[in-house]
C-alpha cells in the first residue's frame, strides 16, 4: 500500500508523456517560459553586477557579497508574499498590472535568482588568481577586455550560476503560487499543479507530475552539460577569441 502512489505515479507519468496530455504539456511549457524568462532577465542584471563585485575592491565588499550569498536561499513563499504586496493593485507597483500574469511570475522568479547569479559569478571570478588580473592588465587590455578574459577563465562558475538559476526558478512553488495563483489556462505551472493535485488528494497524478518535472530538469541539465563539452561549442569559443 505504501509504495503504491509512487509506483502509480511513475506509470502515470510515462502514460502522460507518451500520450502528450495537453494540460500537462501546457503547464510544462508555461514553467519553461517563466523560468527561462526569469533566468535571462536575471542574467542581464546579475552578470554585470557579479563581475563588478568579483573584480572590484571597495569598502563594504565583504558585506555586499555576504548579503547576496544570504539571499541565495531566500524562502520563495516569503519573497512571493512580499512581491504580492508590491504588485497588488493597492501596492506601490500596482500600476504595472503584474499580478496573476505569466510575466509577473517571471519577474518574481528573476528577483529570486539574481542573488544566485551575482554570488556564483563573483565567487568564480575571485577564485581566479589576482595575478591573472594583473597579468592581463599589463598586457595592455582595457577594463572591458580584462573582464572578458577573467570571465572566460571563470566560465565554469558562471555557467553553473545560470544553470542553477534556471533550475531554482523552474522548480520553485512559492512565487508562482503567490503571484500567479494557479489560474487554469493562464498562470498554472507545473509546481502549482502538483500542489493543487495533492490538495485534491490525487496523489498518483501529483507523483506523475513530479517525475515529469525531474525529467525535464535532468534532460535540460544533461543537454547543456554535453553541449558545453562538445567540439562544436569548443570551435565556437575559439572562433570568437573566447
Amino acid at each position, binding site marked *: 500500500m505504501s509504495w503504491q502512489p509512487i509506483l502509480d505515479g511513475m506509470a502515470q507519468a510515462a502514460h502522460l508523456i507518451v500520450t502528450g496530455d495537453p494540460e500537462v504539456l501546457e503547464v510544462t511549457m508555461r514553467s519553461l517560459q517563466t523560468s527561462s524568462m526569469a533566468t535571462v532577465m536575471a542574467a542581464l542584471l546579475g552578470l554585470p553586477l557579479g563581475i563588478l563585485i568579483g573584480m572590484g575592491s571597495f569598502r563594504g565588499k565583504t558585506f555586499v557579497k555576504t548579503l547576496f550569498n544570504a539571499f541565495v536561499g531566500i524562502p520563495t513563499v516569503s519573497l512571493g508574499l512580499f512581491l504580492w504586496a508590491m504588485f497588488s493593485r493597492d501596492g506601490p507597483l500596482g500600476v504595472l498590472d503584474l499580478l496573476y500574469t505569466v510575466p509577473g511570475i517571471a519577474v518574481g522568479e528573476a528577483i529570486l535568482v539574481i542573488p544566485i547569479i551575482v554570488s556564483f559569478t563573483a565567487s568564480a571570478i575571485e577564485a581566479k588568481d589576482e595575478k591573472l588580473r594583473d597579468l592581463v592588465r599589463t598586457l595592455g587590455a582595457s577594463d572591458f577586455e580584462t573582464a572578458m578574459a577573467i570571465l572566460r577563465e571563470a566560465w565554469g562558475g558562471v555557467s553553473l550560476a545560470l544553470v542553477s538559476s534556471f533550475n531554482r526558478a523552474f522548480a520553485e512553488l512559492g512565487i508562482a503560487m503567490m503571484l500567479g495563483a494557479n489560474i487554469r489556462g493562464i498562470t498554472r505551472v507545473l509546481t502549482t499543479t502538483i500542489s*493543487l493535485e495533492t490538495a485534491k488528494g490525487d496523489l498518483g497524478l501529483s507523483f506523475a507530475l513530479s517525475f515529469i518535472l525531474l525529467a525535464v530538469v535532468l534532460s535540460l541539465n544533461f543537454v547543456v552539460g554535453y553541449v558545453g563539452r562538445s567540439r562544436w561549442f569548443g570551435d565556437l569559443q575559439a572562433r570568437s577569441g573566447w
Partner: protein
Amino acid sequence: MRTEKKGMTINQRTMVIIGVVLAVAFVAGTWYMTRLPATKEQIIISTTTSFYETGFLDVLKKNFETKYPQYNVSFISQGTGLAIETAKKGNADLILVHDPIAEKAFLTDGYGVNRKIVAYNFFIFVGPSADSISIKGLSPVDALKKIAAEGVKGNAIWVSRGDNSGTHSKEKALWKLAGLDVTILKDQKGPDGKPWYYEAGAGMTATLQLADQKNAYTITDMASFLKNLASGLIKLVKVVEAGKDTLNVYAAIVCNPAKNTRGHFDASMNFVKYLVSDECQNLFKEFGFKEYGQALFKPWLPLLKGNTDPTLIEWVKNYAYFDGTECPTSYRLNVGDLYS
C-alpha cells in the same frame, strides 16, 4: 583582444553586444507571447477552497464561458480569509465565500455590494470509526463539550482547520455556542504533555488526512468529506450529522466599484446573475449527484421559491440573512431585478 584564429573572427565586444540584444529580444518576445489574452474581458473571482478542491470551479467556468464567450473567468482559490483580503486589496472583481460574519463586514466596510446567496450544504463532524468517546448522534454543541472534556484527559484529539477559512469560522462559532474559549483550548495539554487541539493550518483535504492519521475528530463540509472518502484517502466516519447548527451557506458579493478600480462591475453582475439563474442552479443540483447520490452544493433558489421545506428556509435565513434580507438595500447598486 582580437585574436587571429583559423576561420572567421568576431570581436569580443560585438559578441557581448549581440548577446545582450538577443537576451533582451528573448525576454520581450516571451513576455509578448505570454501576456494575458486581450480579446476577452477577464473576471477574477476570489473564492473558497472547497469549490476548488472538489473540482466544481472547472464546471462553473466552462458553462459560464459557453454562455458568455466574451468573458474569461479566473478563479483564485484561497481560504475565505485570504479571498476577502485579496478582494479588499482590489485584486479581484467578486468573492464567492461561506462566512456570513465576514461577509457582513465586507458589506458594511464598503468593499462589497449586491450580495446573493447561491447554495448551501452542511458541515458534519467526522471521527474514527471506533468513536471511543461515544459522541455519535450527539448535537454539535454537546459533542464539542464532550470532546473538550475527554481531550484534556487524553482520550480524544480534535483537528481544526486553523486557517481563518469559512469552515474554521463555523468551528469557532460552534465552540462559542458550547460556551468554550478556543484560545484556552488550544493551549491545553493532555496527561502526556501533548496538546489535544491541533491546528492544521491547511485546506480541507489535508486537514481530513491529518485527522485520519491521528484518529481524531474534526469538522468538515459534506462535499469535501464525500469526495475524500470516495478516493479512499480517509477512513473517518460521520459522528455528528447535518442540522441547524451546522448549516453552511455560500454567497457571492460583487466588489464595490467605489473602492475597486479594476472596472469589471458589469461583468461581475453578469456572473452573479448567472449563478442564480435556473441553468446554473441546476449545475449545482447535479454536481456530485452521480458519484455520491447527493448534490455536493445544494441550490438555494429552487428551495426558496419552491417552499417545500420551510424549516430549512428559516434556518438559512436565521443564519445567513442580515436584517431580514440577504443584502440590505444600502448595499445594493444598480441591481435591476436581482432581488425581486
